[in-house]
């Protein structure tokens, strides 16, 4: 196990280096040069040739790209990702602030999704092909097709406009969390119901469940003691994968409810071409994503020792 983790960590180093290089180079995809973008933001008009050259010299943009990149990376490793061009705030502080906001929204909504999906999915699998099962399958199939931000708008229309009992945006009071959490939680619960149902169904037809039944155990005991335990493995895996999506996954909901999360913050920076923020956020979120994936892999391997990550045929990649 330790050998496996060590191997994975070693192997992360080249991936991280290339990732940081891409994060830095992203800006050069733009049709205008960094100097033009930054000066335009500063003076709100097209910069002159002279201004551009002065700027390049001052900020080192006249040096070769590799030199620029290493100096950026060096600063980044010391926690200095530069300052936002729009409001001059520190990129790392912004990231941490919006990371916390995103985490609040995401963890609460995933918990809600689990609370909805687990009972419905398990009961659905238990009474497969019953009226309840058919209804819950139709419900989740329709639900999966609803865009999360649209669900949010419908909720706002009902609870903020028609009934006027909940605020439609804001971050300060706990009440503000309710609608975005409902929207995100509901929309994640739909696919989770399907997953829970399939996982439980698959386990229910294994031989050891038949053995338990032939021993004369009650259905409830079979479910709680034997079936659910194994069915949890794919569910935990997918929940883990969902959690890594909280970087940017909720961008539309966050922007809809003006929630100051990562997605919302990043989308604003991207549309105003705020270079240091784009570079810093891409780098930090990629690092987070890589590490989170590693942790999920390790947890899955712990839960189910049969999982073999050397098999790359895509079977275990969810």
């Amino acid at each position, binding site marked *: 196990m330790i050998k496996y983790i060590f191997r994975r960590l070693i192997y992360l180093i*080249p*991936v991280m280096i*290339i*990732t940081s290089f*891409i994060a830095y180079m*992203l*800006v050069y*995809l*733009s*049709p205008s040069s960094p100097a033009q973008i930054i000066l335009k933001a500063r003076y709100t008009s097209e910069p002159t040739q002279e201004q551009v050259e002065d700027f390049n010299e001052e900020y080192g943009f006249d040096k070769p790209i590799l030199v620029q990149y290493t100096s950026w990376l060096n600063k980044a490793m010391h926690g200095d990702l530069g300052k936002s061009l729009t409001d001059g705030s520190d990129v790392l502080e912004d990231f941490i602030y919006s990371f916390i906001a995103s985490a609040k929204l995401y963890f609460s909504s995933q918990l809600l999704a689990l609370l909805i999906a687990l009972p419905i999915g398990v009961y659905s699998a238990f009474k*497969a*092909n019953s009226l309840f099962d058919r209804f819950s399958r139709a419900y989740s*199939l*329709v639900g*999966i*097709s*609803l*865009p*999360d*931000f*649209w669900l949010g*708008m*419908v909720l*706002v*229309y009902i609870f903020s*406009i028609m009934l006027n009992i909940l605020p439609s945006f804001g971050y300060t009071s706990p009440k503000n969390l309710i609608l975005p959490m409902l929207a995100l939680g509901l929309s994640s619960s739909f696919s989770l119901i399907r997953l829970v149902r*399939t996982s439980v*169904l*698959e386990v229910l*037809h294994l031989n050891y469940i038949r053995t338990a039944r032939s021993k004369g155990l009650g259905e409830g005991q079979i479910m709680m003691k034997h079936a659910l335990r194994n069915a949890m493995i794919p569910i935990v895996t997918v929940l883990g994968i969902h959690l*890594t*999506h909280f*970087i*940017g*996954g909720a*961008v*539309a909901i966050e*922007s*809809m409810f003006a929630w100051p999360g*990562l*997605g919302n913050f*990043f*989308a604003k*920076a*991207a*549309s105003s*071409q705020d270079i240091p923020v*784009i570079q810093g*956020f*891409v780098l930090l*979120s*990629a690092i987070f*994503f*890589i590490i989170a994936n590693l942790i999920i892999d390790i947890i899955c391997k712990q839960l189910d020792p049969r999982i073999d990550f050397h098999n*790359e*045929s*895509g079977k275990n*990649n969810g």
Partner: protein
Amino acid sequence: MGNNLKTGLVLIFVLAAIVFAGPLIAPYDPFEVDMSVRLQGISLAHIMGTDQLGRDLFSRLIYATGTSVKISLVVVAASMTIGFIFGSVAAFLGGAVDEFLMRIIDVFMAFPTKIFTIAIAGVLGASAFNITLALIFTSWASYARMVRGCVLTAKQLPFIDASVALGANRRYTIVKHVLPSVFQPLSTFAFQRIAHTMMMIVGLSFIGLGVQPPTPELGAMINESKNFMTTAPHLFVFPGLLISYVVFSFNILDDSLRDYWDPRIKSELVL
């Protein structure tokens, strides 16, 4: 399950009719501004009402569905092609080439897709063309990894050995035996991605990084309607229902096609 397949096919057929024959049915020009009828509700003249510039919502929705669906199809087809080339080259050549290509794919998959897409779309500037490029750029890697896995698995199957043992040359084996066994999982995967890609496009257009107004696009239209939620709820309700209709059609068809193509999975799920 057979019923689902029929339902799915009918839904997709109607969708294709909206996308390809829609401009013929649309009663108004989707760009025609008429401030005298702005923000009107449902009426005989405008069966789905009008928007904040007095444009006919029904006509705009028809064009908007076309925009969203066409971008999804282009993104999926292009990423599938690129992924197929990368994945099969890696699997067939093996060795150092494989190692090199896999590392590239790893790096592409190391980024959270949405953040990466938003970054590229933002840096390039928001437009329909740039959002298509950004989505292709961020999604081809998963196709490549999948194709590589399929080719590697197929290469080990006994019937490939049998074909070689019978004297078939390398090219014949690849074209006649290995590639066909990749096409089915690849097309299932791609089909599944259409609905997902569609959700990405409407989401990105909704936050203002995708298709730009006045071009009709479902997500962008919902974004425009945000300021008129109280007075004109039809402006966000109809586009949302249409998105759900499109995604639902692809989902149900994907579900039933998988059962149809691979009865083994069906027996596992339905039992």
